């Protein structure tokens, strides 16, 4: 696939556009992989991993449930229940592998697409849907599950993650932070500033880049002419490119990276090489900018199918197990559907509730004005 798409892009490349081949799009030999797309276990000398059959089944369950939740949310958007949804389809392994590599005291700073990481942090999926339905702009307590609010301005959260990691160092704690971002965000000043701060302060933060090949309509060649993981070397810390559709490799590499960070060895950049199977969001139309052949080729690398193939080949799971996961996923879908449909609109005075944490006379005045205005309508309520 990559060779084909590379040569096609090369022919079409406009003057001044870097050669896509040099962006490392086809540089798969550099990928750390522990599970082939066919479901065969392979070893990597630097990233050994021992997993029990129970752990493998648990990862499979995570992947299936996360995909189901995501599909449900997409449907709910199509039904008008959500204003927007940013699907993680195709990126389940990158998120579950890294999310499961975290310890309870570690802290994740997501973009707006890390539903799989939220799952691993035990954040209620319905909490994630509030902002997409429009009943809040985040809404959960980040410190409850050590999972920060979604951040929409691209890359801004990598600085928050780095500052949090600086605080861990000051506290003398052995927690670590993981900062999620994408290939598009790698161009942002904030991400490069976060690399700089984390590097000079030797902060315990793992920069986890899900390179899903597309920043809305822009391929990675618009962002970079070297493989993204190599950016780390210029900042003085290690970078690793991992097969982002291989949940085992992602787990092993992220676990190593978090331990590297928490043991005072400083930041790591992990580039999870994956693919955004769906649209950027439900408002996007990828048929305008990418070829279906490319998407088809990535289907063969599906993160769930390969783990399922492995479980079956090795006889580590039986039909009853798969049926059980399927039933659980149906149950989750139902809970999400009903939960979203019954999610109440907030009282309009929510507008004023949390603008400041301490009293603010202008906010109080405007709230009183609004309430008096609303009360002036018949029945005392304005809709």
């Amino acid at each position, binding site marked *: 696939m990559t060779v084909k798409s590379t040569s096609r892009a090369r022919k079409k490349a406009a003057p001044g556009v870097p050669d896509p081949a040099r962006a490392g799009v086809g540089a798969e030999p550099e990928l750390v992989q522990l599970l082939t797309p066919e479901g065969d276990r392979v070893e990597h000398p630097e990233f050994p991993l021992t997993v029990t059959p129970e752990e493998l089944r648990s990862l499979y369950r995570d992947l299936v449930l996360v995909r189901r939740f995501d599909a449900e949310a997409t449907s709910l958007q199509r039904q008008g229940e959500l204003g927007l949804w940013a699907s993680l389809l195709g990126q389940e392994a990158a998120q579950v592998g890294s999310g499961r590599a975290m310890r309870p005291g570690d802290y994740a700073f997501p973009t707006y697409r890390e539903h799989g990481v939220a799952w691993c942090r035990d954040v209620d999926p319905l909490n994630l849907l509030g902002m997409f339905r429009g009943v*809040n*702009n*985040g*809404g*959960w*307590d*980040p*410190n*409850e599950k050590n999972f*920060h*609010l979604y*951040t929409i*301005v691209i890359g*801004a959260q*990598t*600085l*928050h*993650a*780095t*500052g*949090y*990691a*600086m*605080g*861990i160092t*000051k*506290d003398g704690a052995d927690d670590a932070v993981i900062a999620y971002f994408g290939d598009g965000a790698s161009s942002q*000043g*904030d991400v490069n*500033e*976060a690399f*700089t*701060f984390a590097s*000079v302060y030797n902060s315990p933060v793992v920069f986890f880049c899900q390179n899903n090949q597309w920043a809305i309509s822009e391929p990675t060649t618009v962002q970079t002419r070297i493989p993204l993981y190599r950016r780390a070397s210029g900042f003085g810390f290690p970078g690793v490119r991992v097969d982002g559709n291989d949940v085992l490799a992602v787990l092993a590499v992220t676990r190593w990276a978090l331990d590297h960070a928490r043991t005072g060895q400083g930041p790591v950049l992990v580039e999870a090489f994956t693919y955004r199977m769906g649209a950027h969001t439900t408002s996007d139309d990828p048929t305008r900018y990418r070829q279906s052949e490319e998407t088809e080729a990535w289907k063969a690398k599906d993160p769930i199918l390969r783990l399922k193939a492995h479980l079956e080949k090795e006889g580590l799971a039986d039909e009853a197990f798969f049926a059980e996961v399927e039933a659980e996923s149906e149950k989750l879908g139902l809970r999400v559907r009903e939960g979203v449909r019954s999610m109440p609109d907030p009282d309009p005075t929510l507008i004023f*509730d*949390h*603008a*400041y*944490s*301490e009293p*603010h*006379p*202008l*906010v109080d005045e405007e709230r009183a004005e609004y309430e008096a205005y609303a009360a002036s309508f018949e029945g005392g309520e304005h809709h």
Partner: protein
Amino acid sequence: MAGQLSIAKALNEALRKSLESDPKTVLMGEDIGKLGGVFRITDGLQKDFGDDRVIDTPLAESGIVGTAIGLALRGYRPVVEIQFDGFVYPAFDQIVSQLAKMHARALGHVKMPITVRIPFGGGIGAVEHHSESHEAYFAHTAGLRVVSPSNAHDAHWMLRQAIESDDPVVFLEPKRRYWDKGEVGEDPMLPLHSARVVRPGTDATLIAYGPMVKVCQEAAQAAEEDGRRLEVVDLRSLSPIDFATLEESVKRTGRGIVVHEAPVFLGLGAELAARLTERCFYHLEAPILRVGGYHAPYPPSRVEETYLPDLDRVLDAVDRALAF
């Protein structure tokens, strides 16, 4: 604390007290360590509190504010220094979209007790981007509090109050007054967001903050020689604004003139004029007038005296107000 201190020293003492009283307070900024900051506001603090609490940062303003947000999430109380007013714009997203909104986005679950100190305003003969008055951008942003002291006492106590606030505060320091000396009292005397009548009068109210308070006091002094008694109100807090104090004064004098260095167009004076007109309509003898910078980039220093409001421009506005 008794005795005459420069504004710079009063700020330095405020930072020292804040570092002493709360181990979670940390200072961050460019050149604030050994150098003590380009204006020496942090002089000696790294030596006494260590480079773990008085942190020299990379030259990246967005990075400074962004990492301060992360530190606040971890329970710290960061005080960041932006070296010059014109250098804050690279941090604009982190201030207005991240810092200002975090508390609301988290439905109150997280607090952002961050103080962003910025030396602001002109009049020091500087090269470009070193003389900006950008208070309206920040005052326009819900979630931020914005204050500016005009004297040593307020510089000291307002900074300590700002650092103690659980909301983010943009703290605008009148850089051309850094070396003005004044008495610093033993207690703050006013809450952070109160205005203060610094000179009583009867004929018109001059409303100013930061560096322009002194100009207005001098104008009032000069006007007195012509038999005009001008009241001067030091706004101190730009968001929220203490309208009760302003309203009481303007209703009494019947005239209000807002003076700031920032461009008049959509400056803080526009909001003050609109609100005071609403509140004082039947007491006004003249429209609320505004004196400020022009709608042009801050000029080269050889002509900045023309751009900046001075005693004569203030008195010219007083003449116009009294002529109605």
